[in-house]
């Protein structure tokens, strides 16, 4: 019994470790960043560290624009694809496509960024206009990143709907699509929504791939069109952290951006967990 107790204590310590890490991250982000968290930081319109102006509003809006567009694109392609795979495709087709999609979940983002930089940006510049580096390029690159994950999770939640539901609906004379729309999708919706929320979080936290294609203007402005260049919260940290002097308000401002990111992603996580939990209760 003694050894059993010791083992359980050790295991508890291990389990607490990730909590400790998160706790430490939170504490140290807040400690460095909280002094900059004020309305003029969140709603200030100018980010220009050498003039001591730290307003992240345009960056925040830019980030949300890029993330929202990417999620919309990924949803528009991903959800119907998932419906097709789980409800309409022959088994062997589904197997091939599904396992190929699963294979590229989490493909290194720097490779996607490389693609964006060398193919997408020149393509947009030559065929759509602007400098190529744009919100549009950010959309496509991020959509690439979240699409495989979205298809996989959405397809899984669709397939988790018991077959008896489908049979019951079909037996009442409903068509396949009516069945999908009225029975399968509602039952799977919480899983799909959770997948979407997690996709938003993932897109928001992505650094490298978007950094390479969104343009990062000297002083970001609130974007007015899809060819405008923006900064992301993450890319601002990535570009500027290496030279922000110790103890300068610039450094605290970058930590404050970290705090904002942290809370947005944690909130999304909370929502996703809540959605999933509600599904489980049903």
């Amino acid at each position: 019994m003694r050894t059993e107790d010791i083992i359980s204590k050790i295991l508890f310590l291990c389990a607490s470790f990730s909590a400790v890490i998160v706790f430490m991250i939170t504490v140290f982000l807040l400690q460095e960043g909280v002094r900059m968290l004020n309305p003029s930081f969140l709603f200030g319109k100018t980010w220009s560290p050498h003039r001591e102006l730290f307003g992240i509003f345009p960056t925040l809006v830019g980030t949300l624009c890029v993330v929202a567009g990417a999620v919309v694109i990924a949803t528009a392609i991903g959800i119907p694809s998932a419906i097709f795979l789980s409800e309409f495709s022959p088994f062997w087709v589904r197997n091939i496509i599904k396992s190929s999609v699963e294979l590229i979940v989490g493909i290194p983002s720097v490779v996607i960024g490389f693609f964006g930089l060398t193919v997408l940006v020149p393509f947009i510049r030559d065929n759509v206009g602007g400098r190529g580096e744009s919100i549009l390029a950010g959309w496509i690159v991020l959509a690439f990143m979240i699409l495989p994950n979205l298809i996989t999770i959405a397809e899984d939640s669709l397939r988790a709907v018991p077959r008896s539901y489908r049979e019951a609906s079909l037996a009442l004379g409903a068509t396949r699509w009516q069945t999908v729309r009225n029975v399968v999708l509602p039952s799977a919706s919480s899983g799909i929504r959770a997948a979407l929320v997690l996709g938003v979080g993932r897109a928001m936290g992505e650094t490298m791939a978007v950094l390479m294609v969104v343009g990062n203007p000297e002083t970001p402005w609130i974007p007015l069109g899809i060819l405008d260049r923006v900064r992301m919260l993450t890319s601002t940290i990535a570009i500027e952290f290496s030279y922000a002097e110790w103890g300068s308000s610039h450094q605290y401002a970058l930590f404050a951006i970290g705090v904002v990111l942290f809370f947005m992603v944690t909130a999304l996580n909370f929502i996703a967990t809540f959605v999933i939990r509600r599904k489980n209760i049903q």
Partner: protein
Amino acid sequence: MKEAQKEKAVRGLLYVTVGLSIVILPIIVVWVIANGVGAISLGFLTGRPYRFEYGGIFPQIMGSIYLVSLCTLFGAPLGIASAIYLSEYASDNVVTRTVRFFTETLAGMPSIVIGLFGLEFLVYYLKLKTSLLAGAISLSFMMLPWTIRASEEAINVVPKEYREASLAMGATKWQTILRVVLPAAIPGIMTGVLLGMGKAIGETAVVWLTAGSGLEAFVPRTLKSPTGSLPMYIYLIATQGHTAEGLQNAFGASLVLLVMFLAMSVSALFIRNHYLRRLGS
């Protein structure tokens, strides 16, 4: 027959989107392979980088391997132990719910934030410098929640009957876990660990801040050596290399990185598909 027509229309639409997925998703892989194969040569794989555009990527390949192996060495045992605690020992109380929530939070943490933390805490505060060790530990923070989640799922799938049978033989809880639960859960755990390794090997922001942001021309000799990695190489060459040679090398490195990544996800899926099915029977 309006419904039948609608059904047809919907089907058509679905065919279009799935066709779009089929065309779009492999584009990057195909693009990298098509452009990268020409770059691969013995010299490229075994040489070291020279100025920005020339030479090989041997230190980067080794750096990535070292980083990921070390990160797995830290992250996997810790993650598996945590999962065992959460699924076998923890009763549902405030402490475990907190631990679980924090674990989920860590999973969603933007990698740049983890990198910042690694830089401040490991590099500056613990004075590890930008090094193999700092990079590997930071990567393991990122990998940890995924390992925990996958291991927990794998452990929960193990039927209750196995545990009962073992306990009824007079085994202690820990003996049961070690001899029955873990062996049965290992395929699932390995799937999770491999997927986590795939995430770690492609991660750029974290290694940039903690392991080394340069074009290292040497294989790390100690844990404190700065360490180059494939993602960092690709980032540097893709953004700064402006000549045909540079582009070619970036393609070659992308291909190598992709092959390593796919090797991990293929083996993960292989293990999952060939094993978990068996367990279910």
